[in-house]
């Protein structure tokens, strides 16, 4: 009996000592990631200044800029969105191969959070506290990124170009480090809402939206423009429950002729398939984040296959109305599409060239633009100040809102209709603000052409 107890004591001590070794061993294993540094090392020295490159901030050395991100590489939001970070990495590889940012290579380390906010909390702490990234770039998702927004601001880590259109990134006084990039959902809701109010006068409208800031911001914008008498049903879903039959049945029962959907791609596909099953065929108006035709078509076909049916994805997305703040993928004359197609063919050819890839490259371009503006040896504050000073319009069709007092990204989009798996623009680029009364106006400027080198001018 006595021996047993001695044994137990020694076992616990052994366990804890071994635990100590395990932890110690792990902490030494944080070797730098190879992701995103597939290109050649920087050789050209950009800019006229010849000041030596220094380790001017955490994550910046004389040769590299390490940035991090949390992305849904697995889980409910992975279909489609998991292509975004590799596309950004592909653009960074292109930049690295063409001289880098003032000669520094960008090392982009993105970790999987499975679209689960608790996992986001862990991976972002790993990136900031252990891997010492310079900035968190393009962290994807509204519920996920909200879990780390205050942590990043408390740590004074630049939190740039969140991959979500929640208006919550625009809080320069409380969250000065955080910046949006894509069209925020309130502006988007207003633009889609105005279109519906004008083109479907007198029709019954139903809402289908994700039950979080994403869906609710979108609904807010829609409600600014669509008279409440037109709205006959408001149905929400949660991304962890794939059964949307009750919501679709309610929409059908309400007699909705037009359904507006603020949903992620998987749920747009579920909405479409469930409607089909219930013999319900309203005109679908879908938010940009849930309407990429190539992603949707693939999802529709694979979901239908799981259910034992065969469908033609492209014919199911035909006639879907949506909006876009990026040039149309099919627009071969657009210099940005040509540039990103070239980078895609060279560095990311395995992924289809779809809206997600365009997104990943566009946001990566904007980051390089901001880094070049931040200077040769930037501190973390320099990057934030550079963006606060405003960024020139680039791959997106409307200008950015960035200023000291506004951290929203792009300010407008155009309406388009999906035909045979491609987006056909309809009407001009519309810009607006996030207020209830702010007018929606046609944008009169023109999008600048992409630089011939493919890299923004410093």
């Amino acid at each position, binding site marked *: 009996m006595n021996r047993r107890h001695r044994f137990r004591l020694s076992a616990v001590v052994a366990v804890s000592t071994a635990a100590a070794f395990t932890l110690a061993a792990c902490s030494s294993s944080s070797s730098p990631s190879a992701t995103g540094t597939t290109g050649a090392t920087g050789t050209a020295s950009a800019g006229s200044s010849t000041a030596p490159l220094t380790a001017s901030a955490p994550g910046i050395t004389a040769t590299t800029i390490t940035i991090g991100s949390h992305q849904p590489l697995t889980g409910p939001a992975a279909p489609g969105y998991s292509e975004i970070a590799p596309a950004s990495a592909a653009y960074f590889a292109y930049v690295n191969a063409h001289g880098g940012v003032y000669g520094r290579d960008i090392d982009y380390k993105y970790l999987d959070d499975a679209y689960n906010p608790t996992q986001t909390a862990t991976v972002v702490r790993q990136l900031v506290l252990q891997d010492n990234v310079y900035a968190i770039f393009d962290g994807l998702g509204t519920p996920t990124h909200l*879990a780390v927004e205050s942590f990043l601001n408390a740590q004074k880590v630049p939190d740039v170009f969140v991959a979500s259109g929640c208006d919550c990134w625009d809080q320069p006084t409380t969250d000065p480090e955080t910046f949006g990039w894509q069209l925020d959902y309130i502006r988007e809701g207003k633009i889609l809402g105005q279109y519906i109010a004008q083109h479907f006068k007198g029709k019954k409208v139903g809402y289908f939206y994700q039950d979080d800031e994403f869906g609710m911001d979108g609904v807010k914008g829609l409600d600014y423009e669509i008279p409440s008498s037109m709205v006959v049903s408001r149905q929400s879903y949660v991304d962890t429950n794939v059964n949307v039959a009750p919501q679709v049945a309610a929409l059908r029962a309400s007699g909705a002729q037009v359904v507006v959907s603020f949903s992620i791609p998987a749920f747009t596909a579920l909405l479409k398939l469930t409607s089909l099953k219930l013999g319900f065929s309203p005109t679908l108006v879908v938010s940009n984040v849930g309407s990429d035709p190539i992603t949707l078509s693939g999802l529709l076909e694979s979901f239908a296959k799981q259910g034992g049916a065969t469908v033609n994805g492209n014919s199911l997305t035909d006639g879907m109305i949506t909006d876009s703040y990026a040039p149309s993928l099919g627009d071969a004359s657009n210099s940005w599409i040509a540039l990103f197609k070239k980078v895609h063919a060279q560095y990311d050819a395995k992924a289809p060239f779809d809206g997600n890839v365009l997104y990943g490259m566009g946001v990566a371009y904007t980051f390089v633009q901001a880094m070049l503006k931040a200077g040769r040896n930037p501190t973390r504050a320099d990057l934030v100040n550079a963006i606060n000073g405003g960024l020139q319009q680039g791959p997106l069709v409307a200008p950015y809102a960035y200023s000291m007092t506004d951290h929203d990204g792009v300010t407008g989009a155009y309406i388009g209709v999906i035909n045979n798996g491609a987006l056909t623009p309809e009407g001009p680029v519309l810009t607006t603000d996030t207020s209830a009364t702010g007018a929606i106006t046609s944008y009169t400027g023109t999008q600048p052409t992409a630089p011939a080198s493919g890299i923004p001018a410093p």
Partner: protein
Amino acid sequence: MIVSTLPRRLAVVIVVAVIVAFLSIKLNAFRDYQIAEVAYEVTAVAGLTVLTGLSGQISLGHGAFMAIGGYTTALILLHLNWPFIAALLIAAVVTAAAGAVVGVAAARLRGPYLAGATLMLGVALPAVAYAYPATFGGDQGLNVVFTTPAFLGANFPLTRWQAWVGAAVALVTLLLLANLCYSRIGRNWRAVRDDDVAAALDGINVALARIRAFVVSATCAGVAGSLLAVITALVAPGAYTLTLSIALLTAAVIGGLGSLPGALWGSLLIILVPTYASDVATSHGLSSSVGSNIPVAAYGVILILVMLAFPQGIQGGLRRLVALFAGPMNRENEPVATPEHSEKEGSS
């Protein structure tokens, strides 16, 4: 024996506390965060291993109790601004009450029926947060503000403080559990687990013993949920999915059912393997579609290997190894009887 075990356990707790304090100062801030994660995990797993290993009941819904503890803590810190220790204690009391309610139902169910009932709890309860978004913040949950106390100075890293708080709570929980398991209550649990009819004939109130086990186990999960809330500074339904409940059970089984040191082993694996595996995956430049699935695969492989090599879990395997090296003169102490007997730690 009763006189000698408590000081012994206290000594173990102090040794572990010193090691944790040393590690937390020596290692980087993210490792501190992981120590805190291991602390909440071990708190919950210890409660579950007692429930399943000692009283013979299964729970596939312990994530729900963690959710109750987490949301209680968040709401108290958010609306009442009480100190964390008060929130922790109230969270423990609230989950104990919830555990009692579930325990009453559980005492009547066995095997697959109990598994089914607790599974339902684990799946359904987090959905309450979606039903009342005004109170629980819906999908994105509630932010929890947890800061280092002023006396440690402004520059004291928050993660180190989280590691200390987590380790302190986990060690106190383990100490209390260890004492409880070797008390009359713990002996009754083992008697009920091995043969409830015989236990009843011996005058043990079987239903009461089962409910007690559920209350104790749920309280541990509630305390763990409370820790999780302040460690991640967030409570959101996405944290308390079925995956979490299953992961807790996995940790208990890998470590060795019914063994408290085993709970620590299992928790270390659950917390450290995914990060380590994803580090390895990214540093070898694997494509993201392969790399992002490596942690899940590594987890599965380790589970299979451990179960093949040590059917009694890591702690059972260690015990066997020690017995092997201790030589034949101590053979009689080696657990050679039926599997049920060999997992009975402390059958001495």
